[in-house]
Every structure is written in C-alpha cells, then in structure tokens.
C-alpha cells in the first residue's frame, strides 16, 4: 500500500482510520466488485486485481493472492448450490482437475519469477481480449434472457455427440479414454422437460487446454472460466449448461492449488484477503438478487467500455 494512494489520502482526510474501518472499506468495495463481476459473467478476479492495484496501489502479487482467495470462496459458494442440482459432472471435474491444478501451481510459481510489470501487461492483455469476446457474445442473443439458446443448445450438442461417437469409434483413442473413465452422462433439461444424454469427446485435448487455463488462473489470480467453459463446451462437446456448472466446481479446486503457493510465500495478507474474499463472495452470490430488474444488456456496453479503460491502464502500468 502506497501512502500516496488517492484512496489512502481520502481515508486519512475523513479522519483517523484504523484497521477495522479499513477492513470495512475493503469489504464494501469488494461487494461492488463481486456484483460487477457476476453481472459481467467474468467473475470477481477480473475486477478485484485492477481495483487493488490501481486504486489501492497494492503490490500486484499481493493483489493476485487476495483475488485467488476470493475466487476459491466464490466458487465454493456457487458450486455448493450447483452440485446438488445434478447438472455438474463430478467425474469430468475430478479428472480435469488433474490438469488445472498442475497448471495452477505452474502459474503461481511463474508469477513469483516474472517481473511485476510483465504481470500488469499480461493482465491488461487478457482483460482486453475478454472484453472483445464479451462484445461478440452479446450479438447473437438479442432476446432478454436468451431462452432460445437454452432451448436449442442441447440439440446441436446431441448431434455433435452422435457424430463424435462414430468418429471416436473409427479413430479410436480419445473416445476410448472417455469410455474407460465413464465420463459420459446426462442432465435434466428444465426448459425441454427431458433428460439429455451427452457423449464426452476429445478428452486429451480438453486436458491440455485445462492445463493452460490453470496456468493463466494461477498466474493472474482469476478463475479463468472464460477459458474453461469453451474447453469443455467447444472442445469436449459437453453441453453448455453442464460445462458452466462443472467449470464452477473446477475453478475452486484450481484456485486452491495456486492459493496455497501464494499463501506459503506470504503473498496473502489476512487483513486484506479476509474482507475482500467475503465481500466478493456476497456480491457475486447476492448480486443477481439485488440487481434484479436492471437491464443487464444495456449496462453491459457501459461495463465493456469501463473494462477497456481498465485494460489500457493495466497495460500502461506494464509498459511505462
């Protein structure tokens, strides 16, 4: 924490601030960051690292350690609800965790080696790419709640699954691995009122992509659901709903693996990580309830612009 930080100066102007009051400031800011993250569909990590470094002038490794703690907490709370709803594929999550956790440890170790400026530049770049992706994702679903997507998603997934089973049988290997691990499953689609079976494909490719996603997560302190969901949805042909729920569980395990490295290194300060993790958790899980009625689509454009500004600022800190 830099004494010249504008926030610190503001707090000091308000009067003598002790650590308890400082914790409450962090808690409040984190609730907002969690709400913003869940509204954007990016998670809290993408918001909390820029807030802690740009606004509070925190060392970026300390900010990443704090963020990854918040990610583990938020994932646990979200997964606790998801898992019981039987959409999550526990076998897929457990198997892919082999790759994400090893990736996470790699990332956490790399972040200890890389220069802080490089971390800023990398964070800014990943943030910018995510912002562009969000804009592109927005276009196809013009509807308010995109029920069309939930209705149509299982059909191509099923078709893909059928095609893939035949190709897997002809080409062998990948299909074999998913068969031997018994990864295939089914989920109950509420919108259609039917049980939708699916066949998991390209397990090896999925594993490789998950290693990468884990590394990015451990390096930057983000959940990297942005990478995990496509790895399951696009590469492994797992239905979107199942991918999202399974990714949520996987994010927690991945965060744990890198968080213990940050913790053992002393990069997780309890007085910062405690209030921030609880704040992000509350903001992310309760945010959707509080923000009911807000036209998320309209706000999204504003947020994407804000995201772009933050990305440029992070990049600038890396270059300047």
């Amino acid at each position, binding site marked *: *924490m830099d*004494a010249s930080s504008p926030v*610190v100066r503001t*707090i000091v102007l308000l009067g*003598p*601030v*002790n*650590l*308890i009051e*400082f*914790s409450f400031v962090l808690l409040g800011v984190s609730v907002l960051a969690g709400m913003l993250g869940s509204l954007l569909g990016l998670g809290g990590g993408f918001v909390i690292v820029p807030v802690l470094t740009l606004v509070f002038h925190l*060392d970026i490794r*300390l900010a990443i350690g704090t963020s990854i*703690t918040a990610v*583990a*907490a938020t*994932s*646990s709370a979200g*997964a*606790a*609800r*998801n*898992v*019981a709803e039987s959409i999550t594929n*526990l076998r897929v999550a*457990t*198997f892919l*965790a*082999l790759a994400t*956790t090893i990736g*996470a*440890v790699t990332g*956490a170790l790399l972040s*200890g080696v890389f220069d802080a400026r490089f971390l800023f530049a990398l964070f800014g770049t990943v943030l910018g790419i995510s912002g562009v992706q969000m804009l592109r994702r927005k276009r196809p679903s013009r509807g308010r709640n995109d029920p069309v997507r939930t209705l149509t998603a299982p059909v191509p997934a099923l078709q893909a699954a059928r095609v893939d089973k035949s190709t897997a049988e002809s080409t062998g290997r990948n299909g074999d691995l998913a068969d031997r*691990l018994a990864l295939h499953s089914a989920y109950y689609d509420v919108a259609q009122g039917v049980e939708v079976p699916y066949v998991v494909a390209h397990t090896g490719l999925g594993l490789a992509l998950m290693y990468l996603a884990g590394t990015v997560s451990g390096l930057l302190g983000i959940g990297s659901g942005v990478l995990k969901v496509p790895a399951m949805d696009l590469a492994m042909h797992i239905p979107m709903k199942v991918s999202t729920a399974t990714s949520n*569980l996987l994010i*927690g*395990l991945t*965060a*744990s*693996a890198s*968080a*213990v*490295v*940050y*913790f*053992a*290194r*002393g*990069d*997780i*300060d*309890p*007085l*910062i*990580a*405690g209030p921030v*993790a*609880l704040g992000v*958790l509350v903001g992310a899980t309760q945010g959707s309830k509080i923000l009911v009625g807000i036209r998320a689509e309209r706000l999204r454009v504003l947020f994407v612009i804000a995201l772009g500004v933050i990305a440029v600022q992070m990049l600038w800190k890396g270059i300047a």
Partner: protein
Amino acid sequence: MRAAVGRVLHAGVLASAVILLSGYLVSLVQDPAAFGSHAVEQAHLRARASFPHSLVAVWNGIGRGSGEAILVAGVLALILTPVAGLLTGAVAFARRRDWLFTAISATVLLVILGSILIGSLTP
C-alpha cells in the same frame, strides 16, 4: 454424493466466515492499540509481510490464542474449502469401489498438498 459435496462446500464457507469474524474480535480485544489507532500500517500491507504464513506458525499462533493467527486460519479455511469438497468426493468414490476415480482424486489432492511444500520452499 452430490448432496454431500454441496453440503461440505457450504459448511466450509460458513465456517471460514465465522473463523474470520472471531479472528477480528480476538484481535480487537487482544491488541486494541494496533487495531484502533494507526491509519494504514505500511508494514502490514506489503508482500511477504509479518503475519504467520506457514502451517506450523499458524497452529502455534492459535495455541497462543493470537487473533492474527485466527485470521490467517480463516483465510486458510476459505482456500482449503474446495479441497474438503474433493476429499468428500474421494471418499464417495471409494465407497462405490470406484478405485480409478479414488486414485484420480487422491492424485489431485497430492498435487495441492505438494504445492504447499513447493510454495514454502520458493523464496
């Protein structure tokens, strides 16, 4: 199995929150000067700071009733809640005699526990 994993995750988050809050309370009672007077302590808010960050140090700190160690334990509980979920899954796989997935869960567990060692060995 799903329900059990869900319950463990939920309980882990709640327990962590309780430990964190009691850590604040104990710190406040124990050392009101450190918590109540100074603005924002420079030393505290820097990387590789003075708080305990090894399992042994945290354990000993809790034994002494140190508020700071309790706070660290709360953060540690948050970090390790997903691991508790994994452990619950491993037990459920073992009960079903699904040895392949019991072994996979155990390997993931070893990776995470091993990374504590790796982390504490790196400067």
